[in-house]
């Protein structure tokens, strides 16, 4: 099969998405790994840009896509998603809400946060023994996730676990749009890219404090 690009956590950043799409090979399958629009400057335009790619895109639902739907509990503080919600039609919110939690291609499982849910937090430095339970019974050789906006590639419970990074709002050192092509990490620069307000180290500390435990 042709290559697979993973575009996670775009968060309504159309400029970042456009820069990445310019580098994705024309025949690639694109896995959009959730948190497509929330909190970003151009939620509707970002969603429609991706939908215009037709069935080249395989969609996953992230927590911030789910939490746009009325009454859904989650991580986003009250009010944070109101602006995004107001910029979308009911049909667009329904589309994001009804996407599946996982996609499987061959022996690779694509999920938003972890194989079990869209909320679990772990990073490159979360101790393996703390998070092995998430992967021990997963019927896949590779798991691709996102959610924490930090790219990594590590082994957990015998599985290769790749965090795709965030296209639209990474907490990385060098600014840019982070994604993968055939599981290889990519960073794409674009006009207007900015360093995050929270540094990488500060964000890793936050993730340590909130990391999932059995």
């Amino acid at each position, binding site marked *: 099969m042709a290559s697979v690009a993973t575009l996670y956590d775009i968060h309504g950043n159309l400029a970042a998405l456009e820069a990445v799409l310019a580098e994705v090979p024309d025949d690639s399958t694109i896995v959009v790994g959730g948190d497509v629009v929330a909190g970003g400057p151009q939620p509707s335009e970002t969603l429609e840009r991706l939908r215009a790619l037709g*069935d080249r895109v395989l969609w996953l639902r992230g927590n911030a896509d789910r939490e746009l739907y009325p009454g859904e509990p989650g991580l986003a503080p009250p009010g944070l998603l109101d602006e995004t919600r107001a910029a979308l039609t009911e049909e667009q919110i*329904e589309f994001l809400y009804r996407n599946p939690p996982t996609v499987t291609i061959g022996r690779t499982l694509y999920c938003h946060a972890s194989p079990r849910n869209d909320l679990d937090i772990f990073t490159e430095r979360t101790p393996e023994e703390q998070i092995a339970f998430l992967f021990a019974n997963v019927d896949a050789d590779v798991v691709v996730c996102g959610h924490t906006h930090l790219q990594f590639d590590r082994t957990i419970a015998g599985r290769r676990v790749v965090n795709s990074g965030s296209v639209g709002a990474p907490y990385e050192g060098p600014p840019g749009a982070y994604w993968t092509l055939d599981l290889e990490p990519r960073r794409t620069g674009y006009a207007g890219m900015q360093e995050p307000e929270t540094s990488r180290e500060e964000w890793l500390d936050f993730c340590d404090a909130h990391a999932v435990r059995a």
Partner: protein
Amino acid sequence: MPSEPDRVAVGRVGKPHGLDGGFFVEGASEREGVYAEGATLYAGGEPATVVASRRGSGGRPVIRLDRDVERGAELAVERTTLPSLTDEDEFYVFQLVGLSVEEEGGRQLGRVREVLEYPGNDVLELDSGASLPLVEACVRQVDLAGGRIVVAVGFADPD
């Protein structure tokens, strides 16, 4: 009354809407006219007539029938009432269920047990447990006459 195999599921009775007995249709068919006022639906196996029909949030059909129905009940129509599909890339779910699925090269993957409908793309669930996206990159050929679907290598578990 036609026998069960002559009917095709077109949705399920979803959550109530309003106080007059109306409800959302879950997993609704996109076929025009299926839920139109005056149409006959089989709800829980027994015929009922659509007495009110409109679109609710997200474009989902909201309908009311001429009798009470239980939430979760299957909604079906007679197969003969469905229009023929003119686009060669369009299929009814019932046409795909039961087809054998093989990879290019001939490896047998199983039979279609169910078609899961998602907003981005549908997914073929096979009796072997495999899940395959119903997208052009994966599904290379649907051969209704031959009773088979051919998929690209790489989407199914190689084991």
